[in-house]
């Protein structure tokens, strides 16, 4: 596009970085929080502040509960109604029952898949789910929002824009832009090794911002690249559904062939059948793992073709000691006999599940988990400093030319950086302030989040007129103070409403809540330092301008 390679790459870096930097900020910030989603859940649902525990008995605890889940999620049902040719029956047929847990889950999520008949999509189904306390099998109240795993986590890959999966596509495009920004960033800066060691925090904002942008970009370059790439790979079937569309006939024929080889039927037989003791199958699976020198707990358990004579049960290990997945064991439902064991993964599947496993972190390794969190925060720093540098580089010129581009970029940067943190803390504060029994409490919490974020946008636009005069928008510092107030407020509210103050959680070593509180205090401290520095700088700049105009007046006189 330009006569030289580096100029073209610079153009790409600047404009796609700006356009999608805002989305990337959301993906990487909420992605970082998702590394500790279960811990945030514990903070947000005090009734679940108990130790993690293994999968409870299927026969006595889970099976009776599965039978009570007769209705799919209302939103999914509404969406399904729009894609079928005939009206759906009142009760949909149950396809599968499954339960998933990790070494960090004191509660158990249970899922039921319902068949959607007369759908143009192959294997179309919708879900119903509940969360139970495995100690007594009691369902958690439905109005409790697991803020970590049900709000922050989906935000980082779908933006909660579910219509036509549009959010997934926007985030996917942003991930592509991230990869392109990394490639072009390396091309633009040839002195890449030196940038590793260069940070001049006391130079002009523009210079120090660029240093920090380069430093954070280079120091975690493999992380940035691999997480953006593995994020895309996780949703490969959504972005490039080659097998599900164009090659569906071949894929279906292969599935059929495989089913005859494994004995795991694709469709229910149509005749009703009974289910043998699943606990017995689990015991056999555990014995097999012990025999192979990899004793472990069950992470995922699924009953296929529920109620049918050819039902089968698949048992998967929780794999806390490895990054990727492991082979599943499949038992015949009616007899409880092992009918098939997945073969060891081939080279391609091993690479694939390693990349996905790193991104999802189901393993038990707290050092690695913190490193991945740090990587996500470094990515966020890299994106923020890129956005700030864009504004710093242009604001003087735009101000002289009376253009408003830098102003709008700055307002959006404020909203997606400090505004996003404000909204994040606002939902946690709302979580502690709203009455426990409030109907649709979860909806109120989410609405608080969006309202706080919208308010930050309005505030950022209002205050960004300073950028038109080539000054730093006071919105940055002001929203930093909002972060300080909200973060300290959330920690205090947690102490007051639940009694789990830091002295207690720290002395008991209950890290999910202690860690969340400590992170918020650290966030408050950082925001306070940032706000003070910004305001001191603004005062100094204002004084310089005053002296300047005084000098001019003196000269005029």
């Amino acid at each position, binding site marked *: 596009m330009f006569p030289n390679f580096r100029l073209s790459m610079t153009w790409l870096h600047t404009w796609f970085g700006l356009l999608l930097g805002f989305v990337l900020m959301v993906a990487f910030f909420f992605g970082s929080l998702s590394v500790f989603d279960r811990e945030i859940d514990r903070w947000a649902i005090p009734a679940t502040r108990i130790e993690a525990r293994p999968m409870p008995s299927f026969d006595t605890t889970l099976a009776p509960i599965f039978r009570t889940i007769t209705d799919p999620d209302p939103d999914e049902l509404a969406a399904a109604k729009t894609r079928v040719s005939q009206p759906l029956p009142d009760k949909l047929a149950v396809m599968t029952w499954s339960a998933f847990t990790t070494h960090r889950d004191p509660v158990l999520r249970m899922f039921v898949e319902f068949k959607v008949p007369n759908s143009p999509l192959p294997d179309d189904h919708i879900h119903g789910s509940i969360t139970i306390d495995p100690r007594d099998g009691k369902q958690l109240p439905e109005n409790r929002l697991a803020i970590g795993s049900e709000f922050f986590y989906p935000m980082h890959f779908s933006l909660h824009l579910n219509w036509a999966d549009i959010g997934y596509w926007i985030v996917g495009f942003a991930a592509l832009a991230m990869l392109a920004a990394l490639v072009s960033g390396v091309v633009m800066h040839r002195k890449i090794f030196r940038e590793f060691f260069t940070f001049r925090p006391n130079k002009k904002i523009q210079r120090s911002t660029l240093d920090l942008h380069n430093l954070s970009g280079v120091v975690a370059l493999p992380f940035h690249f691999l997480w953006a790439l593995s994020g895309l790979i996780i949703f*490969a079937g959504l972005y490039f559904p080659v097998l599900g569309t*164009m090659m569906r006939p071949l894929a279906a024929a292969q599935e059929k062939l495989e089913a005859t080889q494994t004995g795991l039927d694709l469709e229910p037989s149509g005749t009703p059948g009974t289910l043998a003791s699943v606990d017995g199958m689990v015991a056999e699976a555990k014995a097999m793992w012990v025999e192979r020198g990899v004793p472990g707990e069950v992470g995922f358990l699924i009953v296929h073709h529920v109620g049918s004579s050819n039902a089968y049960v698949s048992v998967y290990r929780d794999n806390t000691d490895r990054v990727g997945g492991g082979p599943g064991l499949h038992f015949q439902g009616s007899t409880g006999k092992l009918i098939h064991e997945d073969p060891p993964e081939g080279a391609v599947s091993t*690479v694939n599940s390693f990349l996905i496993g790193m991104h999802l972190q189901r393993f038990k390794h707290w050092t690695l988990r913190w490193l991945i969190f740090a990587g996500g925060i470094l990515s966020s720093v890299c994106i923020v400093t890129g956005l700030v540098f864009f504004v710093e580089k242009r604001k003087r010129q735009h101000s002289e030319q009376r253009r408003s581009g830098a102003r709008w970029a700055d307002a959006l940067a404020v909203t997606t950086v400090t505004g996003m943190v404000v909204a994040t803390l606002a939902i946690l504060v709302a979580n502690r302030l709203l009455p426990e029994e409030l109907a649709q409490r979860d909806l109120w919490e989410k609405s608080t989040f969006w309202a706080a974020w919208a308010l930050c946008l309005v505030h950022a636009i209002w205050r960004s007129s300073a950028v038109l005069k080539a000054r730093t928008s006071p919105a940055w510092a002001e929203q930093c103070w909002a972060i300080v107030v909200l973060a300290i407020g959330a920690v205090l509210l947690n102490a007051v409403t639940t009694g789990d103050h830091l002295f207690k959680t720290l002395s008991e070593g209950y890290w999910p809540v202690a860690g969340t509180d400590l992170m918020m205090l650290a966030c408050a401290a950082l925001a306070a330092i940032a706000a003070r520095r910004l305001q001191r700088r603004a005062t100094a700049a204002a004084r310089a301008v005053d002296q300047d105009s005084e000098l001019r007046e003196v000269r005029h006189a």
Partner: protein
Amino acid sequence: MASVSHPPWYVASRVLASTLGGYAFTWGFISLGAMLLFAAGMNLEEASSLSSMLGFLVLLWGFCWAFVAASLTRVWSVLAGGGVVMPAAGWGLSRALM
């Protein structure tokens, strides 16, 4: 950068080539790649998984190349051409391999 200025349609054409052209090209790469690997004896699941993983790198290459290549005509002919020919070949192979 400011020294070179292009008409808006030219920039738009580059952007469309990099996004839509790159997407079609990658779709072709993944479908044809999966079919070739499958024909060579790899199981279908692994074949599609490998071609998808490589496909995202192809997507990245196409996205960047659309901006750095000198000739816009060449960009369009490679990305859109490949985006038509490769999926068609992949589709044909998938039917032949049934």
